[in-house]
């Protein structure tokens, strides 16, 4: 426990130092842009940091604190934040109220965000350490859920942060929202919330890709070019999908045309069949990714619509002079509007058919890859999945047969026992 606590605290100390250094730099830059007064007194930071490390060093060897590291961590964390908060507020309030978010200011505000991101990075770094202190079970699962959702909450907080000032100033409009909207961060949030690729799909995709490249490597001469073309042509989610499919088909056809003469020279046989199968697999894999991107685009677009509704709602409140006093209210509103929009999407025929199509295609692709893998490994002394399935079928049928026979024996035994009883009764009557 003491070892784990030390690792966490050392990490925390480093992160805090980095965070405050970034904060210092950002503050300096901001002040430079607006004032000609003195820079932030860096001695303050040095003194503060030294005093914290002295506190830490005093306590880390103490058995009493080692047995309750979290209480110590809690106190220490509060001290850091209170000190940094007071220091920052004392030095920066005058100009913070004058921020007008021109390009330079935006850049420096982004620098300040790195403080936030360092905090987030610290929590993530210590997360795996924290989990080691749990036994597997409900407590660990609940903490994982708590942590992951705190992460989502803070991502959402980060998304709205650039807009807080204008909300407080009552100058917030939907246009402000669009200007300050961070699309990559929003995509992260959606991915986290909807688990855009659940583990089994992620594993399937990763396995499929890895297996396919392994098979291609086995036929390296023929497919080096195709592999490179696949990697460089993986589509992004922002392109128009019909155009993507058309472009992809063009690429596929030109690739097929370029290798066609060579393929004609190859004699018919397992090698040629293998190559043709892998060509087909690569094609199917790319189509799957295109369809998957199409589906995800639908999800992202719906998520965007939901958050724009939240922005409209806040803008209306601001216009009507209502207070937006609490980020938790914004967050809860976003969750509710998100639900409304996504449930509406999920209930559409379009979504249902797309989901079914994607699932069906993905399943067939996985099946084909598995079959190709089995063919590639057929000379190895390994039992493959098809053979195991045949075995399972045999075992299943045998179990059924045994079940029937056991019931027959039971029934026969009952009949025999009844007969014996009747015979014995008759015999005793006659005697």
């Amino acid at each position, binding site marked *: 426990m003491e070892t784990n606590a030390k690792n966490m605290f050392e990490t925390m100390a480093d992160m805090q130092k980095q965070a405050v250094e970034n904060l210092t730099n950002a503050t300096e830059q901001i002040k430079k842009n607006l004032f000609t007064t003195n820079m932030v007194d860096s001695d303050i930071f040095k003194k503060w940091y030294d005093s914290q490390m002295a506190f830490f060093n005093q306590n880390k060897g103490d058995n009493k604190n080692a047995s309750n590291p979290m209480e110590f961590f809690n106190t220490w964390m509060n001290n850091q934040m209170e000190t940094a*908060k007071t220091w920052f507020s004392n030095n920066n309030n005058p100009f913070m109220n004058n921020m007008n978010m021109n390009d330079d200011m935006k850049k420096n505000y982004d620098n300040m965000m790195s403080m936030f991101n360092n905090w987030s990075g610290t929590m993530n770094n210590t997360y795996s350490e924290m989990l080691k202190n749990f036994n597997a079970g409900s407590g660990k*699962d609940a903490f994982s*859920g708590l942590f992951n959702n705190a992460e989502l909450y803070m991502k959402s907080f980060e998304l709205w942060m650039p807009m807080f000032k204008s909300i407080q100033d009552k100058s917030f409009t939907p246009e402000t929202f669009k200007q300050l909207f961070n699309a990559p961060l929003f995509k992260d949030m959606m991915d986290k919330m909807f688990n855009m690729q659940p583990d089994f799909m992620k594993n399937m995709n990763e396995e499929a890709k890895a297996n396919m490249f392994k098979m291609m490597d086995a036929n390296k001469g023929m497919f080096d070019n195709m592999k490179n073309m696949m990697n460089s042509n993986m589509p992004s989610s922002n392109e128009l999908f019909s155009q993507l499919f058309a472009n992809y088909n063009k690429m596929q056809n030109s690739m097929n045309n370029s290798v066609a003469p060579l393929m004609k020279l190859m004699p018919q046989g397992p090698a040629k069949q293998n190559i043709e199968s892998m060509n087909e697999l690569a094609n199917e894999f790319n189509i799957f990714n295109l369809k998957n991107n199409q589906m995800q685009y639908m999800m992202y677009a719906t998520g965007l619509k939901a958050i724009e509704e939240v922005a409209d709602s806040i803008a209306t409140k601001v216009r009507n002079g209502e207070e937006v006093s609490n980020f938790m209210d914004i967050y809860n509103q976003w969750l509710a509007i998100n639900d409304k929009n996504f449930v509406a999407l999920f209930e559409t025929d379009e979504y249902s058919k797309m989901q079914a199509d994607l699932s069906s295609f993905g399943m067939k692709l996985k099946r084909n890859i598995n079959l190709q893998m089995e063919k590639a490994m057929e000379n190895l002394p390994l039992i493959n999945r098809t053979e195991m399935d045949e075995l399972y079928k045999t075992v*299943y049928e045998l179990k*059924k047969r045994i079940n029937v026979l056991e019931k027959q024996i039971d029934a026969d035994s009952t009949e025999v026992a009844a007969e014996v009883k009747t015979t014995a009764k008759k015999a005793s009557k006659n005697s």
Partner: protein
Amino acid sequence: MMNMNAAGIMEEMTKTSEKLVKGYETLQKIDEVEVATTPKELVWQSDLVKLFHYKRETPATCKIPVLVSFAIMNRQDVLDLQPDRSLMKKFLDMGLDVYIMDWGYPQKQHRYLTMEDYILGFMNDAVDFVRKSTGNDKIHKMGICQGGTFSAIYASIFPEKLKTLTTYVAPYDFSGNECMLYKWTKDIDVDAMVDTMGIIPAKMIDNGFGMLKPSAEVSKFLNLPNMMGDEAKLSNFLRMEKWKNDCPDLAGEMFRKYIKDLWRDNKLIKGEFELGKYKVDLKNITMPFLNIYATEDNIIPNSSTTPIAKVIGSKDKSEHAFQGGHIGVFVGSKSQKELAPMVVKWVMDRT
């Protein structure tokens, strides 16, 4: 009011960190929570399926035993989540003699188990065991959700073995699209799923249910930090989570027929469903029938549960509208105070 500048940002980060630290401290101290603690003993097993008999301290006042079958895609432990929210315990306390089926955890070798195996095999064998071991020609049968549908199918084929049939929040008519699951199952390529995976992963089914309310997984953890000081509330939360995360995979062939014949083609309510050598005619359900549905059920709409009343042959048939949701039927306090006594009385009156 929140200070929406950098100082406010730091305060928000501090608050979130504090909640995480408090959560870490408290959750670390919690031993594994237990569910399904009402004492019971294993009395019968066939392959992965088990039959348990709840232990009684006093003799049952109801002489005919009850056999309960839950849905296959979730664990029956939710019926006995904790002592003060246990439908099974309530039944025992009120005098019933209760047996419960445990459908087990299908592994890869179980991929070929069919609906016939589950209903004509496991369920029928369990019924026969209870009948034989208790010396009763007929027993009371209860089924929940998918277990209710299966129990109704069973009752149509073997009406002579059942004294009464009670089903809770069970789907019978799959023609509607009120719930998105009903729409999706019309489109999914279940053959591709089963042929590829063999065993249907529980995570896939769970993700589907999760999409009924996407924010539920997020919002439940928003309230968790507030529970850290209340051990009872926290334990209740953890028990529910434990049950929710303990979902079995599904045998592929059973899943294939269940989705195609019932969800997609709606054969059961139309009288076109066949199981093995049997043509399933719901008119053959002639024993007293009690159908319980939840008025705010967002998983199995009432329009899917109630139509069975029109097609069964029972003269003694009734339905009960439970004010609540799908899970509330068996875990809420209303279930303890209102539903359980009503059901026990109904069963006892027909014993």
